[in-house]
């Protein structure tokens, strides 16, 4: 047992095995996702029938976009969570539990208030991302002002900050009679995703790839400013890049589907259980697991009260809270 962990070759081989298994999982879940919906259809028919057929219309207009959106958003959020954890130097945080997501929802609200006649997608995306960036900077700034941080106070401050932003948004929404919309943005789901309404997530995909390429740099950031400077990494620049990447990923997901909680917390921590603390090699696994989680949540949400849908955010919150509780209780000797 100790042997297999200490030998790097064995470890990387088991890493490759996990990677392969996750890939299979994503493919299987993706195929299921294509096949489940309000109207019955059989995937095999697509191959035989002509392209104007009802089945292929549903497939290309609704099912395929939805499945792709789930994969892209899940992977992006998982990677964004991992990077935020390195920047905050704490593994118990996520974009949804520290403020960025709540700030992005606030951004949606502000856009709806100041530009009630609608805005081009790219402008909405940039504004919402700016709000998300503000949320990240606020959180990191508060952390920096705390001279002594215990591993637990960081997620605690994050949760309360998210709550405060949430309450502020609620006040604003109530004043402008947009509470209903805010609630819809806060419980994200992918039921409204059609062709032409998800393409923004390809931006998130590009950002995800960039983040994965920079992953080893972010590992250095996780060691702290002094360590990073010591080995010649430009700490401030890298932090700025990290904030931008995470903010734009959050922005694109919130604009497309709304708040999707906990993926960025659950995926990196589950992967850590398997490969240990160095996330650099594992970041593809984090991305795949994120995609699988979101696919599974969405699928379950579609099946649970068929033909109605439970939003994935609801199910993810339940699973996420449960995993978070287990992680905390499991490692409580370490945390306390």
């Amino acid at each position: 047992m100790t042997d297999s962990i200490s030998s790097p070759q064995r470890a990387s081989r088991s890493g490759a095995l996990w990677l392969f298994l996750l890939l299979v999982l994503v493919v299987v879940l993706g195929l299921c996702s294509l096949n489940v919906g309000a109207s019955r259809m059989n995937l095999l028919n697509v191959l035989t029938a002509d392209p104007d057929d009802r089945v292929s219309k549903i497939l290309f207009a609704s099912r395929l976009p939805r499945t792709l959106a789930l994969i892209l958003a899940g992977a992006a959020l998982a990677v964004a969570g991992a990077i935020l954890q390195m920047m905050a130097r704490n593994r118990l945080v996520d974009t949804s539990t520290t403020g960025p997501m709540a700030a992005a929802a606030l951004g949606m609200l502000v856009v709806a208030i100041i530009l009630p006649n609608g805005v081009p997608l790219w402008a909405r995306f940039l504004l919402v991302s700016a709000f998300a960036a503000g949320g990240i900077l606020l959180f990191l700034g508060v952390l920096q002002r705390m001279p002594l941080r215990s591993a637990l106070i960081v997620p605690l401050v994050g949760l309360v900050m998210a709550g405060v932003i949430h309450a502020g948004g609620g006040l604003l929404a109530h004043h402008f009679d947009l509470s209903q919309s805010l609630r819809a943005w806060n419980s994200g789901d992918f039921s409204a995703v059609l062709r032409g309404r998800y393409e923004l997530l390809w931006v998130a995909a590009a950002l995800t790839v960039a983040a994965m390429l920079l992953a080893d740099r972010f590992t250095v950031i996780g060691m702290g400013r002094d360590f990073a400077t010591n080995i010649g990494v430009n700490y401030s620049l890298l932090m700025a890049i990290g904030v931008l990447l995470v903010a734009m990923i959050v922005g694109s997901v919130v604009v497309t589907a709304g708040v999707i909680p906990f993926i960025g917390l659950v995926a990196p921590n589950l992967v850590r259980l398997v490969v240990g603390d160095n996330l650099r090699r594992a970041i593809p696994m984090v991305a795949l697991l994120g995609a699988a989680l979101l696919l599974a949540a969405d699928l379950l949400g579609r099946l649970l009260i068929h033909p109605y849908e439970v939003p994935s955010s609801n199910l993810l919150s339940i699973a996420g809270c449960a995993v978070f509780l287990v992680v905390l209780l499991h490692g409580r000797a370490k945390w306390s």
Partner: protein
Amino acid sequence: MVLNSWRSPALRVLLLTVLALLCVVGFMTLNVQTDWAFILEYRGSRLLALLLTACAIGISTVLFQTITHSRLLTPALMGFDVLYVLVNTLVLLVWGGSELAAWPPALRFALQVLVMVGLALLLFRLLFSGSVRSLHLMILLGMLAGMLFRELSELAARVLDPSEFGISTGVPQASFRRINTQLLGAAAAGLAVAGLLLLRWRRCLDVLSLGRDIAINLGVAHGRVVLGIMAVVAILVSVATVLVGPTLFFGLLIANLAYWFTGSQRHCWTLPASVLAGIICLVGGQLLLEHVLASTLPLALVIELAGGLLFIALLMRGVRQ
């Protein structure tokens, strides 16, 4: 008791009382143009509900902070309010809505309070059995449990009635405007029971705040008294939640206002002060928003915002020490 100095807690509590009375009088009399009888009755029942809520949340928070030796932990942060909502949903799920609907609401409330007390005692035993001691861990666990309860009851509500879900969410936001005045009598009775139970232990409270070991040394049956107080807290939380719905930071806000304003740790001052602070926040706040500013902003959200900011401030100060 020395009353000659303005620093005396007694004088300060007196000041709070006057302020609270002014709020109450203002709430009842401001902007009444016609039909006094109707207005008095309408506002009177709302006022009563707000007073009961302030009592329940103020007392339960101070008691909870005494037995957990913390100024940060509150029943609401530990998810007790939402637990009540979950109990409510689950009771409906298990017994079936139709059978239970035939019960009088007061009896249903009593049943839910009983379940709630049992669950709260169980949770308290689990969490404070000594294996988990870190305060931050406790709060984090509580907040997550609260979130979990909230999402579970939302899911339960969706599964129970998928077609009507869009209209109402599973866990209602706290509201000090839409008050459940139907259950005023039952809530007042719950408060009275809690108060009677508390009378038995009123002298032990100050001793409890000295810590477990010293309390036992001074002859307090620590384990039994703490469980009893926990039951009182559970009843009070149920009362507050059935009236206005779950809050998060309100209790934290008024309890800390009470400590700060009285400058004392004696329960004979902090308990009334937190209740009075609650009345001033609720009645005074409602008065200010409704009649002075003529705004429709929900008071609950304003209070949650203020309480959340206070919580961050307390966390950062606690860390610095």
